[in-house]
């Protein structure tokens, strides 16, 4: 089994053993849900309900606004309690709809009429994906329908299904691959159909041999489908890295995967697409891994969107005494939380409770110019320079050094022996540079 890889990257301890053998559990319905109107990249959805309205599961509560947007559906039956700003896991409050559960646990669910995957046309698939509010499950939450509608002049020749799950702790995609391989392949085929592509690749890191074996045997007789084993290394699952590893193509700075003829979809997205087309379901639940040494009972869960993290953590037995950090997302790119009263969103992939031992937080010391970050950066940037430029407000130099290319994967800060919060500074620089660029464009 030859494992392909890319330049740079790091290999943090995986901790996958905490949850990898635990099957998905279904989370019982919460007492209330918070539904932020913007659970995706792009324009905020516009609310379609008023305070006091009764809603049933799967009902549209906010519809998509414009092209890059996604609708929001309620995950529970209940009454709209309020519309206003609520804290979210991004760290900032967002306009949200709060719904108090009233109905029985399994009240009748709103469903679209199922489509036959064999006969559905690409337009039908796209329309259904849009209506079902499916967004990328990889973290960025890009509306999937947009990804399935490439501009006419772009030639797409390969769809890559991202089964790397390179973030430590997370085992959600792995469980999907083990538990629902057929639905996954069906979802992949639907994506290929919508994009009119003949080649589909499932890329899986070689630390998941069972998944590779299982899926390989499933796709053996499928035309145009293949499974590729990839070296276990972070960030193998980043779009650019995955495309480079699978196809050998490099996505130029500022360009999208589709510019080199590839479309990447997450495992979870493929499953959601399958569910939307074949079962007619809308995206109202999130599959996630609850893990870390700070949580009493780590689990893989299917949770209604809008459930608060507090509920989920309580369901998993609460936190241990030595927990120091709660993260939504993976440990490398996720967001630390200061308030547990935030909802699980469509693209939430995990909730981690880490102990002091795991985070290894050390005081910051000056940069030693050791070059570790440069060796680790998968995008061949010089993180230490970028961070220093933005620290000194030299944003033009930062732009020249390619700060906007950075995808904030965190490998640099992971390796840094001086514990410099490189990502934090680079993120600041990126924001400023983009702002400067915008100002320039306006002029």
């Amino acid at each position, binding site marked *: 089994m030859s494992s392909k890889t890319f330049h740079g990257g790091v290999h943090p301890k995986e901790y996958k053993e905490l949850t990898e053998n635990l099957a998905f559990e279904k989370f019982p319905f919460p007492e209330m849900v918070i539904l932020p109107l913007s659970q995706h990249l792009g324009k905020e959805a516009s609310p379609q309900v008023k305070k006091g309205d009764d809603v049933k599961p799967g009902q549209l509560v906010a519809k998509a606004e414009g092209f890059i947007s996604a609708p929001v559906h309620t995950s529970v039956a209940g009454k709209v309690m309020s519309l206003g700003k609520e804290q979210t896991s991004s760290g900032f409050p967002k306009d949200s709809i709060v719904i108090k559960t009233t109905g029985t646990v399994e009240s009748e669910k709103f469903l679209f009429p199922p489509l036959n995957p064999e006969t559905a046309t690409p337009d039908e698939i796209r329309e259904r994906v849009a209506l079902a509010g499916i967004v990328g499950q990889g973290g960025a939450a890009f509306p999937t329908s947009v990804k399935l509608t490439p501009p006419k002049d772009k030639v797409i020749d390969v769809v890559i299904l991202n089964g790397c799950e390179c973030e430590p702790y997370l085992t959600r995609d792995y469980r999907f691959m083990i538990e629902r391989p057929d639905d996954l392949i069906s979802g992949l085929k639907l994506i290929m159909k919508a994009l009119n592509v003949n080649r589909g690749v499932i890329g899986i890191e070689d630390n998941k041999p069972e998944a590779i074996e299982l899926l390989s045997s499933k796709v053996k007789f499928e035309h145009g489908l293949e499974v590729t084993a990839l070296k276990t290394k972070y960030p193998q699952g980043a779009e650019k890295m995955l495309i480079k590893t699978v196809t050998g193509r490099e996505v130029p700075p500022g360009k999208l995967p589709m510019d080199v003829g590839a479309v990447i979809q997450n495992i979870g997205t493929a499953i959601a697409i399958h569910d939307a087309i074949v079962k007619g379901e809308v995206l109202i639940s999130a599959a996630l891994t609850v893990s870390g040494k700070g949580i009493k009972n780590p689990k893989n869960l299917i949770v209604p969107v809008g459930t608060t993290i507090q509920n989920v953590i309580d369901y998993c037995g609460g936190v241990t005494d030595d927990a120091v950090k709660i993260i939504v997302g993976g440990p490398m790119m996720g967001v630390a939380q*200061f308030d547990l009263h935030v909802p699980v969103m469509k693209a939430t992939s995990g909730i981690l409770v880490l102990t002091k031992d795991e985070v290894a937080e050390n005081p910051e010391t000056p940069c030693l110019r050791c070059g570790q970050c440069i060796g680790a950066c998968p995008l061949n940037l010089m993180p230490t320079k970028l961070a220093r430029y933005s620290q000194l407000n030299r944003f033009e130099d930062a732009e020249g050094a390619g700060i906007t290319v950075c995808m904030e994967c965190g490998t640099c800060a992971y390796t840094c022996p001086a514990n410099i919060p490189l990502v934090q500074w680079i993120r600041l620089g990126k924001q400023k540079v983009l702002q400067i660029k915008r100002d320039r464009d306006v002029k």
Partner: protein
Amino acid sequence: MDITLIIAIATMGGLGFIFAGALAFADKKLRVEENPKIAEVNDVLPNANCGACGNAGCYDFAVKVVNGEAKISGCPVGGQEVVDEIAKILGMESAQSVKLVARILCNGGNLEAIKKEGIEYLGPQSCAVKTIVAGGDKMCLYGCLGGGDCVGACQFGAIFMNENGLPTVVEELCTGCGQCVDACPRGVIEIHPEDRELFVFCKNHDDPKRSKEVCNVACFGCGICARKSDGSIEMRDYLPEIDYTKLDLSKIPIDKCKTGAIRLIHPERAAELLKEENIEVKVN
């Protein structure tokens, strides 16, 4: 001996002649049209072409100054005299008839602003960076973060952090250059003419409920000041906005503001003003 004298004179004179001729020729034939200000600035410069300014000679520096690429104070040799003269040529003086100063428009220091509960922010203390991590450690998403970015940005040392964790402007040192405004990620600092007295010391646009939650001295948008202001103050998104062209200080019920979010910048003057209005004030 006489011959040496003559040859010496001839040599030096000849060299001078050739050189002068070449220069005269250059002056006539190779003159390039350019902004006359460049020549003027070049004239007041020392023309030692020492390169101490970091540019390729005085002329290069002059070009950069006129084009606004270099600071007028960039010439270390010329000193203040030269700076003044360049300023005169470039007409910079007239623009600054009224002194501008930076005003820090947030009252939410360590005592007033409410911190996020139960967390410890670990990371650089710079405001700009704090904002990225969940908006810093204060609840308010609009107010001063107390990281002192403005202090670092000020070249004149005109800002210091007071004991309450809020920046304070030393007006005598402030030049109104606006560096601090650019440095503040929250837009709490503004540049105003020195003679403006009344300011809204809050930037919070949250609804009243939330603003009460995040800060003890936030404006929660009651709008009393606006209602009696005769149109010089308008409420926008729960925050008063002052139109200084229409402002009549005596009409603003500053004393009615429960949180002190709108007030005069200089308290002595405030007290005087309030006395004039026959409002009882106790000043210790």
